[in-house]
């Protein structure tokens, strides 16, 4: 089955970390992205770069920033091909965000019959 690992980060999680510490964390992300189970992934630019689009009164409206202020900010994702939920969860447990005040939401991807 395919699973999306949606990574939420605590804003400011990287504040105060040295360059070497930040590089080590990036290295961990790179290792995960090279895992055989991982088929796709992306690391997003900070939430400050977001533009949100929605429809109001039949017209699309753009606003600066993410849709809502939250304690955690969506920061990136992996898509993994895993044998079962346990394998996907084991991969999620390796994602550094979870020990830096963030979280990872694991959701199966809808599979369309070929």
């Amino acid at each position, binding site marked *: 089955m395919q*699973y999306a690992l949606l990574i939420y980060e605590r804003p400011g999680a990287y504040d105060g970390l040295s360059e070497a510490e930040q590089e080590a964390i990036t290295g961990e992300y790179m290792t995960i992205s090279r895992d055989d189970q991982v088929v796709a992934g992306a690391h997003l630019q900070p939430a400050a770069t977001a533009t949100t689009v929605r429809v109001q009164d039949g017209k699309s409206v753009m606003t600066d920033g993410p849709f809502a202020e939250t304690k955690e900010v969506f920061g990136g994702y992996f898509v993994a091909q*895993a*044998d*079962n*939920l*346990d394998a996907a969860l084991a991969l999620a447990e390796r994602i550094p965000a979870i020990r830096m005040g963030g979280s990872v939401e*694991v*959701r*199966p991807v809808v599979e369309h019959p070929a």
Partner: protein
Amino acid sequence: MIEQVFREQWARVLASLVGFLGDFDLAEDACQDAFAIAAERWSRERPPENPVAWLIATARNRAIDRLRRERTLAAKTRTLELLAATPDMVDAAPEDIVDDPLIPDERLELIFCCCHPALAIEAQVALTLRALAGLSTQEIADAFLVSPETMKRRLSRAKTKITATGIPFAVPEDHALPDRLAAVLAVVYLIFNQGYAGRVDLAAEAIRLGRALATLMPDESEVLGLLALMVLVDARRDARLRGDELVLLADQDRSLWDTERIGEGRAVLDRALSLGGRGAYVLQAAIASLHCSEPVDWPQVTALYGELAAATGSPVVDLNRAVALAQAGCPQAALEIVDGLELDDYRYLHSTRGELLARLKRPQEARAAYLRALELAFSEPERRFLRRRLSEL
């Protein structure tokens, strides 16, 4: 007799079917079909030599029938492919395959699936009672005081999540086993503790589950510890209530204790200890065993609670340690422990403070503590007990 076989074999048969089909709902429907056929048939003729194998074979055939009828449903495609890989089973009559020695006991896989932490705890409990204990949806609903519709939805949502998210039908790998086993034991213990709320005898169901687990995992000390704990606590069940009134350990009529059960519980505890078990359930069972002795060795109970508090970090355990310490003759030291605990919303903290203050001849403060406990109490026998204590001050 048939009902007995059914209750005992339901989990075996269902586990085998879930393993075979990888679809909880379909497996449950097929099992129900097979048990209905058996009920009808075995009332007329002698049951087969190996009823479990017969039930599994019949249920498999019923599942295949159902799948053929629903062949067009895309959702079942994968299951059909799987069945195509086992053609020899498909058309065999149950009688032809009942001797198959390779029908493994897959109840452990089923338990770990039902108690997966990705499911909400209420769902884990309900699913375990349905799948492993073989209780009906109606019985589970009664036990938890919810409507049958609510319970049906809860079970159905859990089964959907198992299939949709790929919760594995497997015993976890070694590195994950301790945590996952702890989750299973927590569910069984939760069911056991519901037992004393009355209605369906959930304590008995939990003990049955505990026995099954002890058979399936005979070398896990915590599994044995939990079984011993439940059996030892249950052995004093008849003595804990007089009519509707709660009876404290010291006032219990020992002739109501089930000595055979106490012996059984202690034998299981000894096995757990001989495996080197020192986990939370083993320690609690050891304490329960000491509670069944006359006189109770309170210093030893206090020491075990100390060990348990260190293992669990639970303030409730510290509260129990304080109670044991008071019984060992040190109410003042006990009160100091109690006053250091952050458990202000916990009714037993206040009833314990009341007891200790009363023993220390501080009736005014004891009264205030009992009144606070009374505010927090949620069963009528508890409230009556506290009112009695207040009137005795």
